[in-house]
């Protein structure tokens, strides 16, 4: 009996391995994309729609457009559970590509992961891409040639948050004397906006109060009692995971109007508001990755992927959720970077160095956004040697109790104000590591 069981187990494993190959076997004429995913564990509720969005878009490119200029995309997932050690292991395993298909970039999908891989990426010449996250000073590509906190770094998130609040108050000059409390996740991610908030407070004359919430943040009475005592004009909520719905509910309990709370990029998904129930109605959040399906790309995906039963989503109710759209946007940025690189290097798979060139010359303007179906879903993006962020804009969306509703157009960060802060930090890093910055002007 026991032997039969053992044989059955071995047979099942063998059959299982044969029955579940990667999306497609890599070949040397394909472009390989490593994927550090988290479909199980504490962050699975974010990860599952995220990678469904990415994979659906890659499938659309392969099956409808025939690949990127004929180059098929192949990918391999590594389950990381959002653990840094596993992200690093995934990077090490897949950085050279697979079966002859090269790796042109590595999406870390994790700010701690970006920090951990910073030096490895530079040494291996593999661009590390982290949309809406990453190490802020790596915006300065002259010091960080292989790190890309693309789309919107943390300083820009703070600046856009303040610009939105100023808009609601009637102008930046109206911020003087206002009290703005930042309730933040007590981690590198949460603390990242302290420096720009200090700078913005000095410039605009508002009172900047920072209140940390330790991970995981499932009990926040003490923090919100402090907030109530302060009587803030606005609260900027920079939490993550379970700490966001708990914050929204606790704020309501302490009588703080949800309409005076602005969440940042990572506190603005369905998973953040649904558990908070009616307390979240009216909550606003920055949205460089807006939710919804009212965009051209969703119509195309619905026709060719969702309705054909080819989606990676097990439950298509989640089509168009914020995290699904984050996946879509990341995938579109990757594809557009490959197209950019192919213009210089030819229609073939790119390696890491070529991938870096591609990202540094990525220019997705309004016309291109319209052509690829991302108008309104993604802000125009233009990177360079010295600017690895390339965007720095977000819309604001508001939860109406059922869905996110976009309430603004794109709001841009104050790059002129933030840039010296970024350059000072990158210069300090260069000094510490003995890096001679590239001459970006000469590389133009």
């Amino acid at each position: 009996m026991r032997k039969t069981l053992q044989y059955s187990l071995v047979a099942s494993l063998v059959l299982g391995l044969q029955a579940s190959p990667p999306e497609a076997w890599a070949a040397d004429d394909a472009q390989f994309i490593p994927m550090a995913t988290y479909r199980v564990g504490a962050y699975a509720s974010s990860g599952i729609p995220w990678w469904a969005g990415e994979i659906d878009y890659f499938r659309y490119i392969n099956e409808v457009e025939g690949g990127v200029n004929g180059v098929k995309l192949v990918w391999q997932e590594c389950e990381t559970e959002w653990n840094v050690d596993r992200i690093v292991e995934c990077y090490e395993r897949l950085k050279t590509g697979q079966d002859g298909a090269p790796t042109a970039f590595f999406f870390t999908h994790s700010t701690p992961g970006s920090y951990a891989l910073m030096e490895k990426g530079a040494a291996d010449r593999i661009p590390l891409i982290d949309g809406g996250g990453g190490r802020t000073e790596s915006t300065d590509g002259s010091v960080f040639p292989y790190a890309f906190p693309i789309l919107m770094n943390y300083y820009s998130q703070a600046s856009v948050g303040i610009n939105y609040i100023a808009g609601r108050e009637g102008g930046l000059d109206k911020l003087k004397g206002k009290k703005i409390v930042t309730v933040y996740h007590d981690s590198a991610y949460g603390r990242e906006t302290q420096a720009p908030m200090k700078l913005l407070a000095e410039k605009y004359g508002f009172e900047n109060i920072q209140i940390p919430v330790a991970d995981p943040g499932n009990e926040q009475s003490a923090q919100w009692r402090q907030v109530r005592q302060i009587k803030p004009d606005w609260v900027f909520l920079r939490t993550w995971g379970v700490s966001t719905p708990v914050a929204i509910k606790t704020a309501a309990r302490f009588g703080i109007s949800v309409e005076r709370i602005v969440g940042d990029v990572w506190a603005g998904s369905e998973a953040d508001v649904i558990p908070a129930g009616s307390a979240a109605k009216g909550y606003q959040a920055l949205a460089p990755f807006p939710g919804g399906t009212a965009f051209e790309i969703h119509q195309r995906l619905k026709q060719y992927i969702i309705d054909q039963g080819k989606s990676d989503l097990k439950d298509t109710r989640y089509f168009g959720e914020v995290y699904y759209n984050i996946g879509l946007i990341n995938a579109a940025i990757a594809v557009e970077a490959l197209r950019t690189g192919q213009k210089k290097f030819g229609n073939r798979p790119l390696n890491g160095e070529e991938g870096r060139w591609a990202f540094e010359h990525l220019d997705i303007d309004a016309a291109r956004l319209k052509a690829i179906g991302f108008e309104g879903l993604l802000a125009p993006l233009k990177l360079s040697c010295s600017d690895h962020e390339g965007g720095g804009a977000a819309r604001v969306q508001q939860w109406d109790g059922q869905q996110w509703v976009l309430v603004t157009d794109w709001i841009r960060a104050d790059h002129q104000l933030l840039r010296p802060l970024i350059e000072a930090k990158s210069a300090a890093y260069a000094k510490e590591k003995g890096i001679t910055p590239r001459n970006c002007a000469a590389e133009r």
Partner: protein
Amino acid sequence: MTFFLETLIGGLLAGTLYSLVAIGFVLIYKASGVFNFAQGAMLLFAALTFVSLQEQGVPFVLALLLTSVVMAIGALIIERAVLRPLVNRSQITLFMATLGLSFIIEGLAQGLMGAQVRALDLGIDDVPLFFGEIMVSQFDLVAAATAALLVIVLALLFNHTRIGVSLRAVADDTRAALSIGINLNRIWQIVWAVAGVVGLVAGLLWGARQGVQFSLSLVVLKALPVLIIGGFTSIGGAIVGGLIVGAAENLAEAYIGPLIGGGITPWFAYFLALIFLYIRPAGLFGERTIERV
């Protein structure tokens, strides 16, 4: 003074939610000497089952009953597949088994019922109530009342039923209990089933507060300092420990936090537990054991 009182009362009430989680640990530890690392996973499984049933249109009370039945069946399976084969093994072996069990239950819960975050509405408004100038959460008051009710039910179960007497006999002296014919396997099944139902109650209250999601299994981290302070073998200790932890961490966050940068609640509870370990290693109400070495 109002701020101090409000923080203190809020902390005490929040502490009852920690106690609810700790009680599940105490039950199993009393009966089998096992520190059940899977209690958090059981809590997650119970809450996910309840929410999944409700999503299928099952009424509240029926969902509650069905989830209790599921947890009881789970207890039978755990006893038969995990505990019985390991009987007479060391405590660390059993602890490691529950560690593995927690991963299996978490995986099973997400595999069967999905990983999406779900809202849980118990019909208790989380609104402020004012007593003079002091604000108290209505939800916390209900949670505290639930904890009190649960303790009364468990006290009745342990003190006034045949099963309860058997449970206490096993807890006092397992060999003596066996020698008079008490069925240890049956006792374990009952205790794990009761711990599952306690997990359900805790899971519902925590789930209503933060949503039903994977991180529910992490609330056990709040129970550990409660157990160290209150003692691993006393339900009353779990209640008192929870109150102490809740009040202390809230007061510390309000008064010490601003001086050292804030965000101190998670480690302050463990700091407090460490002090208790120095002064009273068995906890306030734990049984002191004397062993020949």
